[in-house]
């Protein structure tokens, strides 16, 4: 029970209800279903690859897998970052479970410093006889140009470029 709830909360809360694994078509692989709604917007992993979500809000989520009886499950959700960092796990689950569906509400509040980033979040769930996997790119809505990180980075970029320009000037030395 707790495993499924954790799975669904993590997936939906970050805007990733086990979304499309296939890069070209938004399709959730495997027989799992999951969805979430933030305000009046619904996110269905069967039809989306990218999700722009509010920086803070409350998501109503639900998820289910087919089957019955107690079985051993395993899965995880992770954020994808550039090499050499790679995957950063944000949640995992495993062990015996007799829960096949769950729903709930999850409140979240991301810092404004993350506005503008396109963060791929992926996950998989292995059950008895099948595996579901998916990925969705999450972006927080809001003004990018008011993000202090971006402003600082742009200023520092200009300073660095000027410094490179000064570096290409030969300096005089006494022979």
């Amino acid at each position, binding site marked *: 029970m707790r495993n499924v709830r954790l799975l669904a909360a993590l997936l939906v809360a970050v805007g990733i209800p086990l979304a499309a694994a296939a890069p070209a078509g938004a399709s959730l692989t495997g027989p799992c279903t999951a969805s979430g709604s933030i305000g009046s917007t619904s996110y269905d992993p069967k039809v989306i690859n990218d999700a722009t979500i509010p920086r803070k809000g409350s998501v109503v989520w639900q998820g289910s897998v087919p089957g019955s009886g107690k079985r051993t499950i395993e899965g995880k959700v992770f*954020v*994808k*970052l*550039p*090499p*050499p960092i790679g995957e950063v796990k944000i949640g995992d689950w495993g062990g015996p479970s007799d829960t096949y569906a769950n729903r709930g509400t999850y409140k979240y509040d991301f810092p404004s410093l993350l506005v*503008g*980033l*396109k*963060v*791929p979040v992926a996950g998989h769930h292995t059950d008895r006889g099948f595996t579901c996997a998916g990925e969705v*790119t999450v*972006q927080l809505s809001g003004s*990018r140009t008011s*993000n202090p*990180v*971006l402003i600082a*980075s*742009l200023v*520092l*970029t200009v300073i*660095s*470029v000027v*410094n*490179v320009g*000064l*570096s*290409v*000037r*030969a*300096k*005089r*030395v*006494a*022979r």
Partner: protein
Amino acid sequence: MNGTRGRPVRGAISGLFTGLFLAVDLAYLGALKTDSVVLTILPIAGLVLGLVLGWWAPVGRVGAVAAPAPGASPAAAAVAADATADAPAVEPPL
């Protein structure tokens, strides 16, 4: 007699930070996803490019003068070879 040389260390550091901040810019502008390998390559490429440019230092470099034209006198060749140095022009041989 004076000469010139590049600034490879300064160039490398500047290039590294240029690539780094450029990567942050592109990520925050949404041009690249956070798992893009370009975000890793940019700082490295900036470092290498800055190192090469700093080493080369093409602006204000001494010695980067055109070769004397064929048939030019030895005096003209000598002057051309040392033209960018701060030393006074070479006296033509007698």
